[in-house]
């Protein structure tokens, strides 16, 4: 398909509102960065955003910026600058493209919103639940910008979750309060925190319902839509705007389900996407699947922003639970069972594993999981090699052929 043609999947009307929410998010941050008020916290995507909102911080998510660098294909140009200051090309390419972006003073925010540079932080807050790269990433900015760094150290590779693990995290969250109060210059406001938690939870419930609408046959939307529409669940969770947005989106999706409107016209096959998106190739991949009458109906990735365990009546412990029960924090048997469970609900015919070169944390193909799932579920699996942002690790022609051959394999069944 030629550049400039309309994408083959059906557009979602709520997209206009989405654009506004994302724009408002960045304008608000930009204004705050310029006037130095309110204070800005940089937070990892599954870090304690609600706590920060409870202290009056505006929250900025560098991973979201990383994804933008990937989606705009600026990453490929910027990564080498991070490599030049000593960062290995083998580590997270969100990190390397973001650091490259900082070094070159180039950001997609300029073209999208006319914002000159990313809003600088007053504090950096990480959570190691997803990986350790985020800690190194934030530590670099902490040294570079001379900004305090605090964080949570989550247990990893967890099977059954124990109370002591949650209590430990809950205590770590409480321990963040005094240093954050000092930086914020205000006292921690429990009611505000609980309010943010309640909104986050509501956002999560709605986001889950949106994702689960894809269980309908035909599916009202695709993984590629969801990667875009998850924006507010990432950057605006804990705000009313996010809640309003997902109410609107859910309504549209439910209408599609009732009217049997398919995201992919004539849906013949349903696929599960396991692993990171390939941000720079969302459009061609989405078009290829659509042209093959295949809908990528679900993914682990988009589910990573469901935190419906949050409970304003038990704020610290429930927050610890929400950020520990996540897929990425869990052990292999849990992950396998999780995908099997998804299969029951979404009824997909095959699983695509994306082996992302720079994110082993989100690449679950490396210890035989594809083969085990294929055997247990009796469906074929495909592994494609690529990366979230570093397109040097991705071969488009090879991937296209692999996907086409995979769909041909499904047709044979």
């Amino acid at each position: 398909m030629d550049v400039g043609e309309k994408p083959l999947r059906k557009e979602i009307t709520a997209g206009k509102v989405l654009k506004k929410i994302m724009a408002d998010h960045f304008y608000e941050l930009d204004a705050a960065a310029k006037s130095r008020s309110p204070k800005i916290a940089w937070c990892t995507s599954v870090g304690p955003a609600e706590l920060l909102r409870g202290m009056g911080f505006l929250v900025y998510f560098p991973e979201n910026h990383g994804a933008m660098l990937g989606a705009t294909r600026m990453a490929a140009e910027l990564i080498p600058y991070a490599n030049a200051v000593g960062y290995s090309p083998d580590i997270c390419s969100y990190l390397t493209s973001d650091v490259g972006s900082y070094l070159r003073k180039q950001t997609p925010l300029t073209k999208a919103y006319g914002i000159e540079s990313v809003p600088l932080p007053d504090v950096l807050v990480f959570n190691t639940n997803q990986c350790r790269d985020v800690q190194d990433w934030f530590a670099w900015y902490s040294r570079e910008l001379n900004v305090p760094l605090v964080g949570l150290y989550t247990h990893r590779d967890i099977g059954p979750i124990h109370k002591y693990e949650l209590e430990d995290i809950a205590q770590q969250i409480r321990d963040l309060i005094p240093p954050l109060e000092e930086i914020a210059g205000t006292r921690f406001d429990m009611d505000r925190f609980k309010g943010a938690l309640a909104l986050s939870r509501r956002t999560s419930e709605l986001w889950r319902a949106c994702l689960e609408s894809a269980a309908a046959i035909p599916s009202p939307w695709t993984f590629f839509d969801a990667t875009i529409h998850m924006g507010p669940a990432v950057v605006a969770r804990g705000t009313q705007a996010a809640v309003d947005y997902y109410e609107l989106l859910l309504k549209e999706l439910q209408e599609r389900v009732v009217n049997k409107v398919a995201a992919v016209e004539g849906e013949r096959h349903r696929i599960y996407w396991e692993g990171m998106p390939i941000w720079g190739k969302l459009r061609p991949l989405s078009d290829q699947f659509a042209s093959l009458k295949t809908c990528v109906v679900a993914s682990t990735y988009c589910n990573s922003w469901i935190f419906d365990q949050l409970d304003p009546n038990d704020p610290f412990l429930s927050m610890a639970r929400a950020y520990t029960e996540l897929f990425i924090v869990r052990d292999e048997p849990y992950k396998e069972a999780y995908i099997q469970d998804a299969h029951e609900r979404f009824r997909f015919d095959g699983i695509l594993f994306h082996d992302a070169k720079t994110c082993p944390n989100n690449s679950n193909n490396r210890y035989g999981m594809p083969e085990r799932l294929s055997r247990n579920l009796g469906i074929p699996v495909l592994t494609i090699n690529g990366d979230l942002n570093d397109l040097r690790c991705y071969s488009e022609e090879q991937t296209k052929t692999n996907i086409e051959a995979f769909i041909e394999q499904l047709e044979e069944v």
Partner: protein
Amino acid sequence: MGGIFAGVDVGASRTKVALLDEDRKLIGKAVLKSGTDFSRTAEAGLSAALEEAGCGRPEIRGCVSTGYGRKNVTFHNDTKTEISCHAKGCFHYFPMAITIIDIGGQDNKVIKLDDHGRRISFKMNRKCAAGTGAFLEEMSVRLDIPLEEMDGLAEASTDMVELGSYCTVFSATEVLEKIRQGKKVPDIVKGLFFSVLKRVLEMDSLTERVVMTGGVVAHNPYLVKMLEELVDREILVPPFPQLTGAVGAALFALEAA
């Protein structure tokens, strides 16, 4: 009834055409350099194959194209990936559960089929073309040995030189080093063949019966013997291994008619 069915496999390096009659018998074939104008090469290949078959174009009842340039073929009814076509072509000759190793000009594939010919899994080489036909072609240039002579040279080897790398560029450096050390050319060539096989074995496990196919095997049957020794089992090879993908494509055309 009557009529013929065409399969056109436009690979990155060679274009192959196979014509089958309605009894699935191969009646015409052609292999050409793909060059830069895929549609013209496909046309030329089709004409050559028709001539061999002694048939005319109107007799063609269906055509399926495959390979990198499959979409460039102007006269196809349908396209299929080379993975499906190699699977189909190999199963036609060996209707049993098989692991197919296809060594092409730029791609290696390992495809597993069950005893109904259904695909269980497939793997293609990743970005780089190490261990494919391109590797041997490059080495033939570096060593200044005609490509056709490689197989005979490898077979004549008495003391294979093992190369550590399967990367084309690194292997070239290693080969130069071996020449400096006074190693014999046949022993080096066998070492190059061995590195092709190592590359293939690195892609996937071999289960069931093993079938080797593709242009490289067609021109270097000694590779098959080497793999047989290496894995200590019999390796099956279809007739005209370079054409297996094209035959598979023609079979798809036949079945669709």
